[in-house]
């Protein structure tokens, strides 16, 4: 039932926001996020939820069904989605045209949930593609300077990826006479066809992740999207691509993926290092977060591509951690921008005037670069360990990422908060703290007891590697 719940909750809220009835749209949207997180959380720590997928007739002659279901990976990401959407909604105070904004916001939440629960390729693609509509509208209408060019660029890049994905889905599904993911994973294709189809599928997933070198849309989109949308974009929408690679590419094309993984691992490792190096050179907090995210996301993708149990677990923990940390970073960057007037690094020396902001920012950076005790550490360690067992050379390259990320993280802290003291700035308000505190608690909790989510991955993720061999 959880699969249906997480779809229905945001849809109801979207409708409530769209209709001219009383009540605060923002509170409703926050509520929808929290309810989703609670529903998914309840399913995660009990044994309901992973029951067999439900299936209803949708478009019979097309072979499409409304098949929905969840597994450990999607439950974990649904929890993250609930938290990220709640935080983002809480942070979108004072937007123009709030009803339209929150209706689109909730629609976006519903489509993300749809991607995570769809067990039918057509339904998956419909949600995957429908996600674009509220996302680009939100960026288009509520974004910052240059938003329309950024939205158009994002739209064209993503749609090109999706066009290839659709070709792959139609070719595969028509050939196999079914679009059900479960049935298709039992369908045996020749190795050559698997490679071609896997490439078509990966085209869409790599653009959305983004995997190096398909990240051209990234920095501009992060810098021009309204901050709550950037939180969602980095926090959960990118994870749908991680999920799709792990849950669709690997089960459907096990042998094709085995052939492709050496190249994909190389791209992910290079992309991770590339993002980290570029992050050291940014002078704008939003593009800084964009490149730091590129680095983190490609590292997570590395864990998926390595496709050992450790790698998968690391990717899951890393996804959750990155989602929470990037939300914190964006919120803090907004607080910072509110104080110094722009998203630039500013004149520096804020630490004496804003000690709490400084410590929160410092904590978020430490979590982002994976210092033990924060949620960043266990995922990173698992991924690195898994990579070393697969290829020591790539493992070494990935370890270099950790070093460079320490450099960019500390570099940002030094440039923004330390140095000659300035007169400007005040500390974070209670309202700002109230949004950040829950995130901080979650980050510490996952850092201290990673087994809480790690076990979830262990228990619920079927050993994909077994199938691959």
């Amino acid at each position, binding site marked *: 039932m959880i699969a249906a719940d997480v779809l229905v909750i945001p849809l109801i809220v979207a409708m409530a926001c769209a209709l001219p009835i009383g009540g605060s749209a923002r509170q409703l949207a926050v509520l929808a996020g929290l309810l989703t997180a609670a529903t998914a959380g309840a399913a995660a720590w009990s044994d309901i939820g992973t029951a067999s997928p439900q299936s209803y007739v949708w478009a*019979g002659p*097309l072979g*499409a069904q409304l098949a929905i279901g969840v597994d450990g990976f999607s439950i974990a990401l649904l929890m993250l989605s609930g938290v990220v959407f709640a935080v983002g909604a809480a942070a979108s105070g004072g937007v123009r045209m709030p009803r339209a904004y929150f209706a689109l916001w909730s629609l976006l939440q519903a489509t993300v949930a749809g991607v995570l629960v769809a067990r039918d390729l057509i339904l998956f693609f419909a949600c995957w*593609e429908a996600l674009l509509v509220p996302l680009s509208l939100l960026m288009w209408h509520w974004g910052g300077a240059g938003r329309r060019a950024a939205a*158009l660029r994002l*739209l064209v890049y993503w749609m090109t990826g999706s066009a290839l994905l659709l*070709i792959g889905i139609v070719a595969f599904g028509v050939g196999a006479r079914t679009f059900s993911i479960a049935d298709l994973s039992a369908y045996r294709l020749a190795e050559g066809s698997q490679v071609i189809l896997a490439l078509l599928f990966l085209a869409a997933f790599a653009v959305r992740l983004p995997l190096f070198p398909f990240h051209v849309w990234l920095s501009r989109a992060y810098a021009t999207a309204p901050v709550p949308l950037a939180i969602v974009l980095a926090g959960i929408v990118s994870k749908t691509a991680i999920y799709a690679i792990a849950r669709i590419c690997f089960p459907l094309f096990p042998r094709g993926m085995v052939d492709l993984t050496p190249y994909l691992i190389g791209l992910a490792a290079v992309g991770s290092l590339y993002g980290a190096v570029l992050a050291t050179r940014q002078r704008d907090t939003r593009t800084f977060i964009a490149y730091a995210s590129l680095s983190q996301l490609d590292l997570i993708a590395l864990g998926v591509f390595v496709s050992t149990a450790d790698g998968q677990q690391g990717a899951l923990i890393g996804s959750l951690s990155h989602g929470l940390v990037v939300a914190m970073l964006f919120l803090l960057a907004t607080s910072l921008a509110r104080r110094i007037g722009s998203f630039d690094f500013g004149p520096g020396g804020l630490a004496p005037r804003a000690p709490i902001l400084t410590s929160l920012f410092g904590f978020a950076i430490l979590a982002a670069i994976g210092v033990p005790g924060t949620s960043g550490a266990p995922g990173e360690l698992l991924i690195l360990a898994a990579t070393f067992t697969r290829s020591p050379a790539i493992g070494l390259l990935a370890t270099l990422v950790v070093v460079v990320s320490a450099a960019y993280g500390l570099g940002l802290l030094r440039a923004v908060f330390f140095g000659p003291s300035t007169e400007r700035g005040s500390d974070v308000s209670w309202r700002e703290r109230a949004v950040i505190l829950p995130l901080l608690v979650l980050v510490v909790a996952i850092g201290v007891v990673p087994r809480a989510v790690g076990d979830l991955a262990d228990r619920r993720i079927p050993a994909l590697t077994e199938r691959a061999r």
Partner: protein
Amino acid sequence: MTDADLAAVAPPLIFAASAVVAGLLSAVRVGARVLGWFGAAASIAAVAAAVVIGPSADGAAAFGGTVARDGASVFFAALVGIVVAGSLVVAAGAPRSARGSGSEVALVLFSASGATLAVAAADLLVLFVGIALLTVPAHALTARPHAHRGDDGAVRHVLLGATSSAVALYGMALLYAATGETAYAGLGRATHNPLYLAGIGLTLAGLVFHLVIAPANRSSMVVNVATVAALLRLVAATRSGEVAVDWEVSFAALAALAVAVAGLAAIAERRMNWLIAYATIAQLGYVAAAAAGSAVPAAAFALSVYAAQAVGLFAVRAMLRHEEPALEDLRGLARQRPLLVLALGILVLGLIGLPPTAGFLARLYAFEVAVRAQLLWLVVLGSLATVASAASYVRILLACFGSPRLDAVAPPRGRISTATALVAALALVVAGIVPGPLLEATGAVRF
């Protein structure tokens, strides 16, 4: 004439009778708005008649096998009726200057009568009569605004229309020469001889030419729907033996050409009428792709989606003052007419083929059919053209959100046009989320 004969031609008869009444009423100076509502009511009556009478029990054609009464004729007659009703409602709701005279309503209804006859034609001669009755009033309608200004647009349209009809007629004559029959039932037995192929080719060319020259205005919707539906029936009848491959290749080439040309040409286009025309071509390209895979239900589905989009787009178009509006003329529309822009946004999503609109399902359905027919290259082309069309049509929406020109006059209120556009957009979304009923209806489309 038996009861069965009468039942088969009930929709054309209702349209023709109402056209005569509308003509008489306009002669005694009844207002165009009243006549428009009358025509819309007559169209709905024709839809109701087609649906209530339904296909004949044994699938037999009337009038000695020349006029069909089957699932396809019922469905397409209903579709034509809905499109005509939509276009008349939009015209009736237009401001006085753009409304036209009452006699235009009579022409539209005559055209609809030809359309419903053409979709049911099971004989080349009936087809020709239907197409002529369909296109001659449509060309007259197109020519009217030009005639006032004395330019050659009117003459050009009539001549082009006559040429296409002549080409089709020539093809039909060759088909008769090759087979000695004009009934579709007899055509199917043809062999692979040059005369026959030339006849098929010229008939196809003539009919498709009618589509190509149909200008982007309200009457073209009816021409498009009816001609495509008539073509589907002709194909189904003659698609046998070695000829089947020729049909498949022809349609695949048409679809590829339509989708590619429309996708590329629309990128740099700034005139609304042309953008709508390219969108139409791309939509009909999906219909052709479905026809190439010989899947009539998929083609009917795509055609229905096209009809909804066309009605909606022309409703929006009716709200713009200029005769040849450009994208710039849309600026400020989002602030002045938010509901209209909401409808336009959904229609644009449908044009691009994005979920949750039915445009997505139509595209997907056509692609599935094409893959089944081993036409994967067509899917690749169509899929990539989608990206180009996204870039083109999103500009329509972009324009709506721009700040208005200083000298711009607010568009007319146009409650009826807005309502029509909203209804079309809503239909598109509902059919995209709950496609069951429409898929069931198109599934019953058989020849």
